[in-house]
């Protein structure tokens, strides 16, 4: 990746944009969506946020123009130069211009506005052209299916060099407390976990920005940064579960959730948890666990839990129910959970309850870090 000379960046995280005019090639709604989605490419991997305004001077002014359009860099008719943008700065700084003589589309015919806009907004944020042909910031247009678009590692490294990862922003709101930078001591007697899941035969323990990987046949535990595996995911994952039959792991934070297969982030995510069938008052998950025998997934929120049928992809009826009443000896709340060999393992603070799913009762009370051979 490259950055502009003298590395201009925005000195704030919350940026504004304004769409000054529209191309007749696409509906207004399609233009709005393409632009919003293009900004999301960058907000997903940085602390940056992009808010649309409809009047006055935005940080990033977006317009369509033909030929000479007042900035000494005239467009050149069809093909050739498709668009250009300016590095962060006052006035024209950050602005993005699109050549109206091109055929703009919302799919892969013509030039896809989302793909070109995502590239130009990389410039608006301070990235220069990359020599990596797989990078979004490569100078030449490459027609890819927008629904399968993924930011390359080159692009992620570049933008995170300028602005840091998704949670590196100084905490301006209480829900973003500053995260510890030192690795967690898994053998501490007060060790707690944010979320736990299995993943292709390993057990993954999530804590702040870190994850601990435990291979069942190997006492060794490795502690890594979550962003090493999933750079576009935020830290502070709150719930996670694996659906082994689909080789998918679902990760939850606040009202969003992602699906990964190994280290591959599946397209179409993040989604909102409401899409699973939760009532609107549910804002976040405490824990989740999937039972591969019944095909049911249990979501734990406060004192209650919901049950979701993975086969029919729908929430079962007559929920929520109370955790303490359904899982005797467990409750009232659950902080993390995973399934292994006919048992759920429920985590509450520094305690862990082994729960037999056939006899429906707690069979052992363990320390939360019993898996680490401390």
């Amino acid at each position, binding site marked *: 990746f490259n950055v*502009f*000379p003298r590395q201009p960046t925005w000195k704030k995280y919350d940026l504004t944009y304004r769409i000054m005019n529209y191309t007749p090639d696409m509906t207004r709604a399609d233009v709005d969506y393409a632009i919003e989605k293009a900004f999301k490419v960058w907000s997903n991997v940085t602390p940056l946020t992009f808010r649309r305004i409809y009047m006055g001077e935005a940080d990033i002014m977006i317009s369509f123009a033909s030929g000479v359009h007042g900035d000494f*860099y005239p*467009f050149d008719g069809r*093909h*050739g*130069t*498709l*668009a*250009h*943008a300016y590095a962060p700065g006052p006035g024209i700084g950050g602005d993005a211009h699109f*050549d109206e003589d*091109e055929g703009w589309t919302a799919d892969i015919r013509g*030039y896809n506005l989302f793909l*070109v806009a995502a*590239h*130009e907004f990389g*410039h608006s944020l301070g990235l*220069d*052209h990359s*020599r990596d*042909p797989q990078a979004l910031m490569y*100078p*030449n*247009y490459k027609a890819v299916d927008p629904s399968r678009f993924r930011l390359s590692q080159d692009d992620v490294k570049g933008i995170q060099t300028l602005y840091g990862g998704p949670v590196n922003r100084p905490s301006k709101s209480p829900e973003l407390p500053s995260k510890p930078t030192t690795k967690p001591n898994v053998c501490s007697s007060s060790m707690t976990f944010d979320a736990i899941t299995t993943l292709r035969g390993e057990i993954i323990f999530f804590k702040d920005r870190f994850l601990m990987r435990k291979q069942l046949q190997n006492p060794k535990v490795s502690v890594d940064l979550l962003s090493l595996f999933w750079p576009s995911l935020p830290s502070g994952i709150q719930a996670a579960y694996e659906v082994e039959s689909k080789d998918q792991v679902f990760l939850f934070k606040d009202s969003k959730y992602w699906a990964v297969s190994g280290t591959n982030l599946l397209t179409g995510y993040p989604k909102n948890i409401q899409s699973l069938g939760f009532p609107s008052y549910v804002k976040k998950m405490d824990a989740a666990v999937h039972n591969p025998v019944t095909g049911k997934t249990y979501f734990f929120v406060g004192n209650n839990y919901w049950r979701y049928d993975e086969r029919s992809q729908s929430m079962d009826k007559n929920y929520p129910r109370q955790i303490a009443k359904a899982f005797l000896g467990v409750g009232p709340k659950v902080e993390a959970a995973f399934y292994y060999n006919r048992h759920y393992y429920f985590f509450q603070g520094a305690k862990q309850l082994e729960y037999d799913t056939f006899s429906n009762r707690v069979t052992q009370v363990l320390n939360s870090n019993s898996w680490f051979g401390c």
Partner: protein
Amino acid sequence: SYNLPVNHGTTLEKNLLVAEPYLEKFYGLKMKELPLNKIKGNDPVVEKIEEMQEFFGLEVTGTLDSATLEMMQKPRCGVPDVHD
């Protein structure tokens, strides 16, 4: 204009019509400032072609070969690839 070391078989004028504006726009070639006293080996146009070939990972020949011309005609972003 300069006698570029061009592969045989391509018409120089047509190629230059593609190359010069591209190199001016994206690689900072200053056509108006070309040195009058050309010393062997310091042909700015050749240097810019080599710079562009190097950026795109093409074989650095300093000539307007077909791969280079093809790359110059791809639709692309208007921001230059190199900056002063």
